[in-house]
């Protein structure tokens, strides 16, 4: 698969602050890559470098095998979380405006939004607004798409339709980079890149990122008391129904609870992606 976008040792400094620190990422044709990171991890700076809005302080950013420029800008599509549509223009007007801006060939309005072509964008429900934003971003047939939380905030049926749009585009050869805080979106990606403090701290499939990490699960007749004990230790304890999940290892947790006269069944369970993510990004940083 051809590589569409690539960074090699890309670094960006703002004064004495290093926002992106020697990052290597690549997005290939036909794949959907998820970019995860806590706020301030450097995701936005990395995206801005890929879009050609910022130059790297050192290292290399390659878009279609050359430095980002106006010529490469025409070959990519970007949908920010705020969608970037004109609310007081109709769907068709938004579509035509963007095609004209990219000097793209006049294509027919895609079937996904034809029914609402004369509606004002601002009046549509969020799921449809997102489909319009995708259609507009796809209108100049970009080779690389950058999408920010593309399916957040919509119901299950809308979400499925949005993913179908994204996958159809990838099947036609587009490379897709999804930035997200949403673990359901992350799990839909073919490959993940996890950033913390400007660096790539994990990458690969969901299983590669979880990397066999485990979490302590506590079941106790009084979850409330167990919660208070674990919480008072400063642990990031999470309630799951009536079970508690907490980072660490089983024995000290069991002993801690026993010191408070709490009988609990304590086991090690496979961590989910969110738990693994929190463990990865909090490991090297102090927040």
């Amino acid at each position, binding site marked *: 698969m051809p590589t569409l976008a690539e960074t090699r040792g890309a670094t960006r400094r703002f004064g004495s602050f290093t926002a992106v620190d020697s990052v290597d990422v690549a997005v290939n044709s036909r794949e*959907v890559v998820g970019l*995860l*990171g*806590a*706020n301030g991890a450097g995701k936005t700076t990395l995206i801005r470098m890929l879009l050609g809005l910022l130059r790297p302080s050192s290292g290399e950013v390659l878009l279609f095998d050359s430095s980002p420029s106006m010529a490469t800008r025409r070959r990519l599509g970007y949908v920010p979380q705020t969608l970037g549509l004109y609310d007081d223009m109709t769907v068709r007007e938004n579509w035509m405006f963007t095609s004209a801006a990219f000097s793209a060939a006049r294509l027919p309005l895609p079937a996904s939004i034809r029914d609402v072509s004369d509606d004002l964008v601002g009046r549509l*429900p*969020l*799921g449809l607004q997102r489909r319009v934003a995708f259609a507009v971003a796809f209108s100049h047939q970009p080779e690389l798409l950058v999408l920010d939380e593309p399916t*957040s*905030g*919509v*119901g*299950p*049926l*809308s*979400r*499925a339709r949005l*993913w*179908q749009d994204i*996958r159809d585009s990838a*099947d036609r050869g587009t490379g897709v980079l999804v930035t997200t*805080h*949403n*673990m*359901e979106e992350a*799990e*839909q*990606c*073919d490959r993940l890149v996890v950033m913390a403090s400007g660096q790539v701290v994990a990458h690969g499939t969901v299983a590669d990122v979880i990397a066999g990490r485990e979490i302590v699960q506590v079941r106790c007749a009084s*979850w*409330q*008391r167990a*919660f*208070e004990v674990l*919480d008072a230790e400063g642990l*990031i*304890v*999470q*309630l*799951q*129904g*009536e079970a508690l999940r907490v980072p660490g290892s089983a024995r000290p947790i069991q002993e801690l609870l026993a010191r408070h006269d709490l009988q609990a069944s304590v086991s090690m369970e496979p961590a*989910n992606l*969110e738990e693994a*993510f*929190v463990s990865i*990004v*909090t490991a090297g940083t102090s*927040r």
Partner: protein
Amino acid sequence: MSWGLEDASVRFGSKLALDGVTLRVDPSTVGIVVGGDGAGKSTLLRALVGLVQLSGGVARRPVKNDIGYVPATAGLYVDLTVDENLAFSGGAYGVRGAELARRSAHLLERIGLTQARSRLGGQLSGGMQRKLAVGMALLHRPPLLVLDEPTTGVDPVSRAELWRLISGAAAEGTAVIAATTYVDEAHRASTVMLLEQGRPIAIGAPAEITASVPGALGVVRSTAQPEGLAWRWGAAWRVWAPSDDLPSGAERLEPDFEDAVMIAALSDQGAERGDAHAR
């Protein structure tokens, strides 16, 4: 004391925003309402706290001073400092003086904002603002805590901290009900309600909802859409057969909660259309 809604409906003009919702909110539990934009989550919560009037049914809620409510947007004053926000909220609920100082210090420590006491609300990051808003709603130890999308747009680390704060209130006996658009947050709840177009399409413990999926679920590893009720999942397709007959080439799969949500939405859509096959 348990609160909640019984067969509650809300009408805005000709639009039925909430359609016969029954939901119990018990002390020391976390209930979560999951739905997309326009599903009726905010209307449900606002009906529960008494901010919108029911056109039918009953809402059982404590007196206003016993409710902590955080709306989906705002929930704090951007022009006030963190301390002033807490004092303002305390004043509204009769928490003053030494009690306000003690409670504020405790909550600020829990949400990691002790060092930010004199910063303006508007200068805080999105995640910090949400934590402060939830902290303000908890100041007067309300028996009922109602949170509208407390974690939307919040990164996973801040999200874990927020849920720790929220679950901590439940551990102390508060009845918590929260709305979210993130399906994966549902596993935090003891009871989940899936809401679509103002109607509950599934309710129960997440494990119960997952276990009660009818028919069969399969995965089809191809880019071509398989026959039947199918949706794209990653590079493959998921296909659901209400009658247990999976198309050929489909590999059987145990549904997880996200599959159960999708299947509930598909069945609901089928029922809406009068599609006997999907019912």
